[in-house]
């Protein structure tokens, strides 16, 4: 949540203006706002003199006024939930008072004067100008002075047209505070607009002439309760709407056709002279992110970038740290136990428009704990007790259809799940899954991929050996078919398969988590906790996101068998860091774009039981939130935290 006050009046004429303006900016900053816009109002014909000449106060001037600024700012930001590090932004805004259509003509997209300001608004003083402003003038904001009798009538179709175009209406609150007479007039007038817009495309700003009229963001939001705005919408009017407005306006200004950013080549030099405040501001202080003048789009980008980074870091670092992390074995079974960790594989698949069928057979990953002295496994898992064998093996066997291998970015994360498997029961699981792939892989993914590939061969070898060693265990094949209707659809399939001997039940938990995201690869961390209790079940975790019904599980019971599945719950496992092997398959088969088939073939001699349940919703919940979110919000941050936790 960031709060803005997009109307701090600026007037060239009065000499005391500068001091007042600095005071206002200081105060706004202290109250927890993240940005202000200095508003210059002009009347009559626009001339070249009206080019933007608003000097932005520097941080030093603010500090001079209030030496303890930072502590106060932090205090309020913490209370408001604004990130401390977010920079304080200043914008330049022009308001044109237009009383005739001819004046309003100046507000067109070709006008170079308008381009010197960040935001452009119009104050209509007649009916025709108001209509024009709603329908076609090239402005960001329609600022109506509600404290006087309106010189025109608000018309619903016009208001709707304006909302359609994305023009914002501004309501200023300083008159509400300052003057009893104006208050009456204002509430009466503004109520109509609020009713019609229902809080959409509405911003609240101060237009405070003195610091006594400036109020904190929540106070402002509550004040609009008088206008009939619900608190939630009012908050949006102070924060979200403003942000959207700024984003949009700046995009219009700086981007060619709102898509291509145009920058000076010598950007560093130039930007500083353009925006003198930023340099000082950012050199100074703790408040700033230190990345220089971040425009809002950049901010959004950096958010996403940072979140990507975080993920990337997770991958590599976690891989390294995997063994050390909590591998805890329950001593429940004294016999030969193999605590195997199965990784939960989370795959982020970038979709290609075309569907590809990818059969992958995976060894369910068995990590063996050498602790229990299992000869075969021990040999594989060298000296350490805590080394787990690598489980992510991808044996790709091409089913009949799979032909081509295309670039497919699959990131698989293994989660440490502690599983006790008997030595005697070798488990091999074959997974066939078909997924859709996307062409655009992001650079980071590629990096990950390369690393993974390097790692893979060894693993495969090992796994293969396991496979060979293991008697074929058989197969409980399941098809999981899900259709991700939304782009970000997370699909976690948890499969635990188990070796069948009843005497020594083994549980191998394999959690597969597949995350399909079209855009950026956001990798969900899966929290996976196995229950200590003895269960004969197969757990399928299917968090359907966004209320979609992603999974249709059709358990094709092949030879169903006694699955004695023991899942053991290590509380500590929850704390384990997600181990991840990131592996990438690049295979392109044919498939439906929308379907992912996950086949897990397990052979287990014995009894078969398959049950589903969705355990640990709470743990999965963060994933959901993360996936569903737009990158703009706090989510990246949150997710970062989450990764740490996990």
């Amino acid at each position, binding site marked *: 949540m960031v709060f803005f006050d997009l109307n701090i009046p600026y007037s060239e004429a009065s000499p005391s203006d500068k001091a007042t303006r600095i*005071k206002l900016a*200081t*105060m706004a900053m202290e*109250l927890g706002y993240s940005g202000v816009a200095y508003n210059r109002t002009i009347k009559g014909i626009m001339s070249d003199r009206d080019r933007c000449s608003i000097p932005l106060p520097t941080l030093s001037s603010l500090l001079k*006024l*209030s*030496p*303890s600024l930072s*502590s*106060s700012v932090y*205090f*309020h930001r*913490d*209370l408001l939930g604004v990130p401390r590090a977010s920079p304080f932004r200043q914008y330049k805004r022009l308001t044109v008072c237009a009383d005739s259509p001819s004046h309003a003509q100046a507000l067109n997209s070709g006008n170079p004067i308008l381009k010197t300001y960040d935001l452009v608004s119009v104050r209509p003083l007649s009916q025709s100008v108001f209509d024009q402003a709603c329908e076609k003038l090239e402005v960001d904001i329609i600022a109506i002075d509600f404290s006087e009798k309106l010189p025109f009538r608000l018309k619903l179709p016009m208001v709707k047209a304006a909302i359609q175009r994305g023009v914002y209406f501004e309501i200023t609150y300083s008159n*509400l*505070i*300052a003057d*009893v007479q104006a*208050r009456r007039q204002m509430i009466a007038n503004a109520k109509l607009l609020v009713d019609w817009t229902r809080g959409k495309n509405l911003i609240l700003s101060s237009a405070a002439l*003195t*610091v*006594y009229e*400036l*109020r*904190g963001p*929540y*106070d*402002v939001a*509550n*004040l609009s*309760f*008088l206008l009939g705005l619900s608190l939630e919408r009012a908050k949006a009017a102070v924060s979200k709407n403003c942000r959207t407005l700024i984003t949009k306006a700046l995009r219009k200004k700086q981007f060619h056709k709102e898509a291509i950013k145009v920058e000076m080549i010598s950007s560093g030099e130039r930007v500083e002279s353009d925006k003198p405040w930023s340099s000082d501001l950012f050199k100074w202080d703790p408040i700033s992110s230190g990345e220089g003048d971040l425009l809002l789009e950049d901010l959004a980008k950096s958010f996403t970038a940072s979140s990507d980074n975080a993920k990337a870091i997770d991958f590599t670092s976690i891989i390294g740290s995997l063994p050390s992390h909590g591998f805890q074995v329950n001593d429940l079974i004294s016999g030969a136990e193999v605590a195997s960790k199965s990784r939960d594989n989370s795959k982020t698949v970038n979709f290609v428009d075309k569907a590809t069928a990818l059969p992958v057979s995976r060894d369910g990953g068995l990590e063996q704990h050498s602790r229990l002295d299992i000869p075969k496994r021990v040999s594989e898992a060298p000296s350490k007790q805590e080394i787990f064998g690598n489980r992510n093996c991808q044996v790709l066997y091409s089913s009949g259809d799979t032909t081509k291998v295309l670039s497919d970015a699959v990131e698989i994360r293994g989660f440490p799940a502690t599983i006790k498997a008997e030595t005697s029961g070798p488990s091999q699981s074959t997974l066939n899954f078909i997924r859709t792939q996307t062409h655009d892989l992001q650079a980071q993914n590629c990096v990950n991929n390369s690393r993974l590939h390097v790692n893979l061969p060894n693993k495969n070898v090992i796994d293969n050996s396991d496979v060979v060693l293991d008697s074929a265990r058989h197969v409980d094949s399941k098809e999981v078919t899900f259709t991700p209707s939304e782009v970000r659809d997370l699909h976690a399939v948890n499969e635990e398969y188990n070796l069948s001997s009843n005497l020594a039940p083994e549980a191998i938990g394999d959690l597969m988590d597949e995350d399909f995201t079209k855009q950026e690869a956001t990798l969900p961390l899966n929290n996976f906790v196995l229950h200590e209790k003895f269960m004969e079940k197969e757990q399928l975790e299917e968090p359907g996101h966004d209320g979609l019904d992603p999974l249709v599980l059709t358990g094709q019971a092949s030879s169903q068998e006694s699955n004695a599945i023991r899942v053991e719950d290590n509380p500590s496992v929850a704390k384990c860091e997600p181990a991840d092997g990131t592996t990438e398959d690049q295979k392109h088969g044919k498939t439906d774009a929308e379907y992912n088939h996950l086949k897990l073939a397990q052979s287990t001699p014995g009894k078969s039981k398959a049950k589903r349940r969705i355990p640990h919703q709470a743990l999965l919940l963060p994933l959901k939130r993360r996936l569903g979110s737009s990158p703009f919000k706090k989510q990246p941050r949150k997710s970062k935290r989450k990764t740490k936790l996990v």
Partner: protein
Amino acid sequence: MVGFKNRYMVVEVNLNPNRDLGTDDPIIITPYNITKAIKDNILVNFGECGLASSAGSFQVKYVNHITKLCIIRASREAYQKVWSAITMVRSIGNVPVVINLLDLSGSIRACKNAALKCEESKFEQQKLVVGASLSADVSKQMQDSLEKIKMLEH
């Protein structure tokens, strides 16, 4: 059946938003003068009925004149009115002030926690502004008021 509920607001009174004054306070805020200022405002903005409907629960529970923090209680039905009135307070006595809400909570316990936190950081700020010359007397008063917050009920 829903019982009667209160809302507790932790507000800060900014006596010197214009920063043209020294460190001396132009007025010492007390529960009395704050109550009066707010009630006057409720009367102006919401009339007799508004005042009467909020008066049942409205109370300034706590005022700290060092950190300028107050706790104000209002009924849940009327708290938005009271809050708006607080927002629109322009002066206490003859001194122009700005009152700013810091926290809003539904129980006195949550309110106490928030208030203690705010007190702490406000006092830190205070120390920063005044410098090292904070008298023992002030510290003592501060301790007393913290105790007072802890003692608050309802």
